[in-house]
């Protein structure tokens, strides 16, 4: 993914709000997810990019234009940035029909050309027939599509979506996730999408930018960032189920041996500084396999004797916490859980492949503060 579309470094603080300090945020083609807990400043970042907020300092450049430069006091207002903006509640103009909402940004075109483009976009999004409806007569999913149509019809150079599913109920949300990804891909407009939902990020994003307390702390392909958090804060935001402090005992042949609680783990020794001694061990629950206590040999490096502590069922899945010298979380299907007859106290073996254990040097953790 090329990252030449937009680069942004800026500061913005509201009285009483978190200080936003975006450093070298780079956007390219494709869908970038801006991921962070609520209150981390995601919406403010989006509004600064849209030109609805003016940062205090920094520089934002996009497509060869300068949108903001604190040094020369340059600020390109929202109306001249050619950015498609879809806010959380869509902000469809309540007094205008669907067609007039979508055509609002095309007022410089002739009436004929405008209605042609509106009709084309509505058809593409499956909204034909709703032209004369007012927004309040639409379902949540239709409102989302009208907001998207209005944002993309003028072919903006950047599309900004703020929690596009926040206004929808859960079943609709799940149904529309795939559709939205399809449409966003199809427009080919570089997109920055805000979410705090891990599954949304995984389903929609090519890249993810992790925002923590107003700072962009890590950026990269979604699966990579989610399985290899740069520091504890990112591990927490991306909800890595098991994060334990451990002591680095030995590094040999690219493999690290770590003491965690009463257990010893083998992991890949990548990105470890030479003098590292304390590390945080991150293990995703879906990377843990549970087998019977009499497990035979397998290729995985880590076989840990364990016993079941708690079982939390959620839909088709169950999150099982086992004690294997330290608390370890494993994600199983309910079916597997029942077949194995798991219950608290049940003895078993937890298996984790060495590459699935991610180590964060304890020094990185300092970035939290």
């Amino acid at each position, binding site marked *: 993914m090329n990252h030449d579309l937009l680069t942004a470094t800026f500061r913005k603080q509201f009285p009483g709000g978190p200080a936003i300090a975006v450093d070298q945020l780079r956007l390219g083609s494709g869908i970038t997810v801006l991921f962070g807990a609520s209150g981390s400043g995601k919406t403010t970042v989006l509004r600064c990019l849209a030109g609805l907020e003016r940062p205090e300092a920094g520089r934002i450049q996009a497509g060869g234009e300068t949108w903001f430069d604190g040094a020369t006091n340059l600020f390109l207002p*929202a*109306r001249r940035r050619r950015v498609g903006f879809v806010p959380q509640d869509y902000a469809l103009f309540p*007094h205008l029909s669907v067609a007039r909402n979508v055509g609002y940004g095309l007022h*410089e075109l002739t009436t004929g050309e405008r209605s042609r483009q509106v009709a084309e976009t509505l058809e593409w999004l499956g909204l034909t027939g709703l032209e004369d409806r007012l927004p309040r007569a639409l379902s949540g999913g239709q409102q989302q599509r009208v907001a998207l149509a209005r944002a993309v019809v003028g072919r903006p150079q950047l599309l900004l979506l703020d929690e596009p599913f926040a206004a929808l109920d859960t079943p609709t949300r799940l149904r529309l996730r795939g559709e939205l990804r399809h449409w966003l891909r199809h427009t080919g407009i570089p997109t920055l999408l805000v979410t705090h939902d891990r599954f949304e990020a995984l389903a929609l994003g090519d890249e993810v930018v992790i925002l923590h307390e107003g700072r962009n702390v890590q950026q990269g392909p979604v699966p990579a960032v989610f399985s290899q958090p740069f520091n504890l804060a990112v591990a927490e935001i991306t909800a890595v189920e098991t994060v334990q402090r451990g002591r680095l005992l030995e590094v040999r042949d690219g493999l690290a041996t770590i003491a965690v609680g009463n257990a010893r783990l083998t992991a890949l020794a990548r990105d470890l500084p030479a003098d590292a001694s304390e590390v945080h061990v991150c293990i995703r629950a879906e990377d843990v396999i549970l087998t019977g206590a009499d497990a035979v040999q397998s290729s995985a490096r880590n076989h840990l004797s364990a016993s079941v502590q708690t079982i939390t069922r959620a839909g088709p899945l169950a999150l099982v916490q086992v004690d294997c010298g330290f608390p370890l979380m494993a994600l199983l299907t309910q079916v597997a859980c029942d077949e194995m007859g798991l219950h608290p106290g049940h003895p078993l073996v937890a298996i984790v492949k060495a590459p699935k254990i991610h180590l964060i040097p304890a020094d990185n953790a300092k970035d939290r503060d």
Partner: protein
Amino acid sequence: MSHAQWQLVGFSLRMALLSLVVVLPPGLAVAWWLAKFNGRGKTILETLVTLPLVLPPVVTGLVLLELFGRHGPIGGWLHRTLGMDVVFTWRAVVLALASMSLPLLVRAARTAFEEVDAKYEQLARTLGAGEWRVFFTITLPLARRGILAGILLAFARSLGEFGATIMVAGNIPGQTTTLPLAIYQAVQADDDGLAWTLAGVSAVIAFAAVLASERLSRRRS
């Protein structure tokens, strides 16, 4: 009612409508500014605009008389450059009604503008709209009910205006006499029948205007 009385009612309605036309552009501009900006001088402007509501109308009339008289700063200028006299003509009636209804209009319109969620205006800007387009296509239409309610209230207030009108326009039958002035005159002349007839007409018009205004306000919430 006699022909002259109908003429009087017609004249009063015309003056009230005309005063609305005069007061609407500056009234909406001031209301919009008060609603959207937090600049210096906001409180001063707010107070100035509200003054006619709390001052004795006669005092407002006196100030207008001073400003628009042939020797006043504005009236003198109008007389010299356009040869136009204001005081003691129908123009003074419009001026008095406009001044007295300005606070009501501004207050209602300001509230209506404030109730328009800024997110719509911001979104319009991201779609390339300049401030005029935002105002006329988003802010004004979304505030229309509140503004209409304010207009009706201002209209009703204009029809009942007495003190400022008599100061600055006098009471010249057929030229500056409005309904309230005619009622006062009728009572002075011991013509209670006429006074009550005109009072009835006033009440009916005011009732209709306030009722419509209330309906508009209620449907909004």
